[in-house]
């Protein structure tokens, strides 16, 4: 059987304090700065609607913005998704570096792959955006 629900995860380690990353990924309105293919987004309360480059509006509900834990969680509520939960965690590795982990769970499963593929590209854009080095 092919899984109906997909679970994916990507991570990047950067040579900077965790707050440098969190200032960007923990600010919902800054998504277009680091996510390729997001043209704009509107944040109203716990709702965020992004406009993709293909013209597709993607409504989301933000569930968690925890500045002490550095955790951001949201659900995409577009009808295409039966269910979706993405979690961004920024971990302090206490050696001058931090680890950003982007986890995606979704049904249908292929959407987990599509979102996580784009998330991976977004994570990979962070070093250039922040002017910091990636740590292998």
């Amino acid at each position, binding site marked *: 059987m092919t899984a109906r629900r997909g679970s994916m995860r990507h991570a990047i380690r950067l040579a900077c304090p965790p707050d440098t990353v969190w200032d960007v990924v923990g600010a919902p309105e800054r998504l277009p700065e680091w996510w390729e*293919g997001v043209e704009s987004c509107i944040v109203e309360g716990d709702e965020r609607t992004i406009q993709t*480059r293909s013209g597709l509006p993607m409504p989301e509900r933000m569930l968690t913005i925890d500045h002490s834990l550095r955790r951001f969680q949201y659900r995409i509520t577009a009808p295409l998704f039966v269910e979706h939960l993405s979690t961004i965690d920024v971990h302090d590795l206490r050696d001058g570096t931090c680890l950003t982990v982007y986890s995606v769970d979704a049904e249908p499963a*292929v959407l987990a*792959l*599509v979102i996580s593929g784009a998330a991976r590209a977004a994570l990979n854009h962070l070093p250039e955006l922040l002017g910091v080095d990636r740590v292998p």
Partner: protein
Amino acid sequence: MGRKILLVTTDQQRYDTLACNGGTLSRTPVIDGLAAEGVRYDRAHPQSVVCMPSRSTIVTGQHPSTHGVWMNGVPLPGDAPSVAEVLRLAGYRTALVGKAHFEPYFDPFLRFEENLLSTEGTTPHGGSRRGFEHLETAAHGAMGPLHYCQWLLREHPEALGMYCRAIDDSLQVSAAVGGDTGAPQVKVNPIDRGIYHTDWVADRTIDWLDSVDADDDWFCWMSFPDPHHPWDPPESEVGRVDWREVPLPAGYPEDRATREAIIDGKPRHWRAWYDGTLVSNYEAPADWVPATLTPDQVREVNARNAVEVELIDEALGRVLTRIAERGWDDDVDVVFTTDHGELQGDFGLLFKGPYHVDGLMRLPLVWRPAPSSRADDVPGASVVSRPVGLVDLAPTFCAIAGIEPPEWMQGKPLPVDDVDAEARGFDKVLTEWDSELFGTDVHLRTMMRDRWVVTAYLPGTSHDGTEGELYDLVDDPLQQVNRWDDPAVRPLRDDLVADLWDSQPPVRPERLALEAPV
């Protein structure tokens, strides 16, 4: 002025669908004519049996392990080496019209340039992409951000819903059934033939050729999306082949017990797919159980496939006519092939997956060298029986253009006959499979050498790494008897497996990421 190159590819076409290869369903006089004037390859194999890795091999001249596109959904990096770029830098005009698929189709963010370009024009940013100055894309229907879909939306919106939807509402490969027999991915398509994607690809190719100066050298990759499923050719053409009169393929034993006994002799993921308990990849409908496939469904799929092949042959004929009208015919090399095959009823299976048998691995390949070159070093009609691969295409194009193939190309210019093939060491060809999707992974390495096809399995979800397949193509051309565990051929098996591992291509240092399902 040098030799011009027309590369014609189809998608998912079997060797035995061409009349010149012994096929009896389709009339393919144009391709047969090219074969009669050129070289027909009897053992051409892909280096992967799915689209993106195989197409990446065609353009890079590298095996999947090296170019890094290890499964569908892994994009080929924009800076990957490309034979089109080599030719462009040598002064060739370059174009790709039709199915590209070096980057994933599932792309709501339009992150991939192939998809983005369809909203902007036909000239890539910076003047070329992978060496192609002109990119005009199409796939298997009306879905997706490709040029054909945009054109259809703009010019013929009434046709958008006529095609079979390859992907269903749950974003799975569609298991919808149709036609007279309820076969999967068969649909009556009322679209006018003139706007079907096969003719569109030919039309756009002709348009690009008309834009080229008479004295220009050019490399044009005309890439038809058919006869890949869905099997939904224009309804007006379906009557060409009456499915009721289509014989069952030799590879489809009608007796169910016989069919299942054959599959049970192969590694366990074969039977698991047949029974509908394991779909390891996104290239087949997850909700369709192959064991339910009926003989009449096999007939109808084969009939519709044959119609699509005929339409391709006719479309190619139109392009060749235009080339002749431009006065280029004597100076054009034409290469016809496909990216991989289709099971099309063999073993009671349809579509494709990690199954390295002839249905997926034996490809049509015809090279009609430019007639003006014939006096030099290319003989008339010939058949090459020794194994060649799609990895050999890129260096062949270099040789045609009079360019030394770059070192990064791993193949060799195609042989023109068996004497040439033997002299230049065409004795084996490699194919590989890797897939990892939602917890299911499969890894195969295959070599065709002499009369044998050997497949070694690496550990994966269904395999512990001790499994394998070994077929004698002379005594068992349908690959129904797996001799991997036959003690009588154990020394041979050991020798083949050792050669298989010794022959593996270099592995790309950094593994590319899977970014979409396809």
